[in-house]
């Protein structure tokens, strides 16, 4: 019997469960390696060469190089691990979170100042297809 995953009907959200974690193991461990300054330097000097040292899929490597965090998550990345790429690039957590929403940095910051994204219309996938 398949395990129940009731969170699959929440829009714009990827839950990092065991299935995602299996898919993203090497991607996330690569991110973790960026906690060491010398690894950050080697990555910045030649991203492709550094990524090729990891048994990641080609799609995962391309998603990292294009800094497409939504795609990284789809391929098993977790935001706290992916944040190490943002730290390497000198980005704040707000800049990273904002980059996934299709809004500009300024628009996202404004939205947060005004109380954030409302849950209204954002609870279920079927609310969004209307």
């Amino acid at each position, binding site marked *: 019997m398949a395990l129940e995953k*009731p*969170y699959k009907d*929440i*829009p*714009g*959200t*990827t*839950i*990092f*469960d*065991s299935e995602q*974690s299996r898919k993203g*193991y090497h991607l*996330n*461990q690569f*991110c*973790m390696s*960026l*906690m060491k300054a010398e690894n950050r330097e080697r990555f910045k000097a030649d991203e492709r060469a550094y990524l090729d040292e990891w048994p990641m899929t080609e799609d995962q490597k391309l998603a990292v190089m294009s800094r497409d*965090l*939504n795609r990284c*998550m789809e391929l098993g990345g*977790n*935001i*706290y*691990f992916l*944040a*190490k790429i*943002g*730290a*390497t690039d000198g980005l*704040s*957590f*707000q800049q*990273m*979170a*904002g980059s*996934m*929403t*299709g809004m500009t940095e300024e628009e*996202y910051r404004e*939205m*947060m*100042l005004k*109380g*954030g*994204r*409302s*849950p209204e219309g*954002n*609870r*279920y996938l079927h609310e969004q297809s209307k």
Partner: protein
Amino acid sequence: MAKINASVYTSHVPAIGAALDLGKSEEPYWKKVFDGYEFSKQWIKESKPDVIFLVYNDHANNFSLELIPTFALGTGESFEPSDEGWGKRPVPTVQGHPDLAAHIAHSVIQDDFDLTLCNKMEVDHGLTVPLSLMFGQPEEWPCKIIPLHVNVVQYPVPSGKRCYELGKAIRRAVESYGEDLNVQIWGTGGMSHQLQGPRAGLINAEWDNKFLDRLINDPEDLSKVSHVEYVREAGSEGIELVMWLIARGAMDEGKTPKVTHRFFHVPASNTAVGHLILENQED
């Protein structure tokens, strides 16, 4: 006998730590956050805990995907702050209480909670930001701290119910420790926030405030809230709030605690900030 006299609940947003470390706490944006803790800083000076049992979660700093413990108790002598990628926070090393921690491990594991014990681990903003909010910027933290890391990063994470029951087991453990110690338990993380995906930035102030009400008045019922409700209503990272139930479970059972302080503010970076101080009432 050791006794848990009070519990403190607070968000642990990393940007709050950064604002303090970079001297921005007087800027209007941040002052609104720090003002909510002015009372608390005075209160804790007077309540003088000997030990804080601090419930938090690591955010892929000490624990990578090599090892994913559900509940990890810090039994070591001391714990260094992590470099999370932006450089180490300029905060003191955390001094543990290995003897009380070992006693708690012994009691809680025999009480059927299978803790992972960590004699060596680093602690990240999840633990150090609450300390900064409550104590400011001292040379040394003024008391001993026992860290308890909870996995809220990779699902399945522990249920609210499991967390609440663990809190009760921690209270029993502390109360069976021979030495007279004034112990506090802190629950950290939350409140509503989502850091990922097109739904990032979700905040639900109404749900958060109901959570605070229920945490104070009916934690047993609150502990039945499902994971999916946390995620749907309070955002994917709002799940951190299950950790508040550990602290609440460790308060005197069947009695409504005194609400010493309550604060709520939106936003700090991507997050709704919530903060409570609850004290056990004398009979």
